[in-house]
């Protein structure tokens, strides 16, 4: 019983995420920031979750067409990444990205986020 309780604590969900997972999240964040920097709406939209991409496009405009109208922070680099289960947060110095793990891989769920504690972040792009 004691071993089972310890196994629960150590192995299930609480004690660290594989380094490879954090690297995957960081890579998606870097690609997204680079796409924003270049104004590459095609790449940026492909790195968003379907819901987030849908929120960018409105009316007759697709995500790629509407992406240029967004005022997302440019520059920055991955400063701090926290991964919990299938969700992650990446602090870039100029922005906070929320990233989620889908069957197709890690995708940006929200970007252009401003903290307003204790309420959730207010994000320019969010699903």
């Amino acid at each position: 019983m004691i071993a089972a309780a310890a196994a629960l604590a150590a192995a299930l969900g609480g004690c660290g995420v594989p380094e490879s997972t954090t690297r995957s999240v960081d890579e998606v964040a870097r690609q997204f920031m680079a796409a924003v920097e270049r104004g590459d709406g095609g790449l940026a939209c492909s790195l968003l979750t379907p819901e987030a991409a849908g929120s960018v496009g409105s009316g007759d405009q697709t995500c790629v067409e509407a992406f240029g109208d967004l005022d997302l922070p440019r520059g920055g680099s991955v400063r701090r990444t926290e991964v919990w289960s299938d969700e992650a947060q990446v602090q870039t110095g100029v922005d906070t990205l929320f990233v989620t793990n889908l069957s197709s891989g890690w995708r940006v769920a929200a970007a252009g986020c401003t903290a307003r504690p204790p309420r959730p972040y207010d994000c320019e792009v969010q699903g």
Partner: protein
Amino acid sequence: MRRWLRDNGLSVFFGTIFLLALLGQAAAGLADYNNHQLAAGGDPVSFGRYVTSSGFAVDVAENWQSEYLQFLLMVSATVWLVQRGSTESKPPEDIGRESRKRQQIGRYAAADSPRWAKVGGWRTALYSRSLGLVMGTIFLGSWLAQSVAGRAAYNAEQLSELSDPISWLGYVTSADFWNRTLQNWQSEFLAVASMVLLTIYLRQRGSPESKPVGAPHHSTGVEG
């Protein structure tokens, strides 16, 4: 084999239904989790993925810790506290740790008494408290597991709702942790209180948890 099953039927029965209930919890929990995933725009997960998730771990651990706390308190409190008429209590005249003779310790131990009841010293002192110590250890271990897995599940939810994750210290002082903890504790304490009081007046013929059917209400610590 038949004799072994007869002699160990109680543990086999409860061990079996425990495993079945745990399996059922995993299946129902998976369905519930995947419903939430789809509603939030995420993808459903497999059974294997779910039973190794922090969400499943915290749901299991929060129940385990409260059960072992219940046992710890019951084992400890019944040394000093009594309930006249209850099968869960000893008679008021026996309040306390009782004599070495009554407890069959040291020179009062029988030939077939456990070895550590006879030897004296720290071994007997430790063995005399072993039930409470083990219950308490399992309680603390599973409560720790609840806090670790609970923080992981909470932080995943925080991020999905575009909020910051929190530290372990932040989590164990959070409403989520104490809501999970106290909702389990209240039901355990209610269960014990119910058993303590109901066994005064009600009977279950043949059960050691009950007094004999004809035993008076005021008789205390009598088994059926």
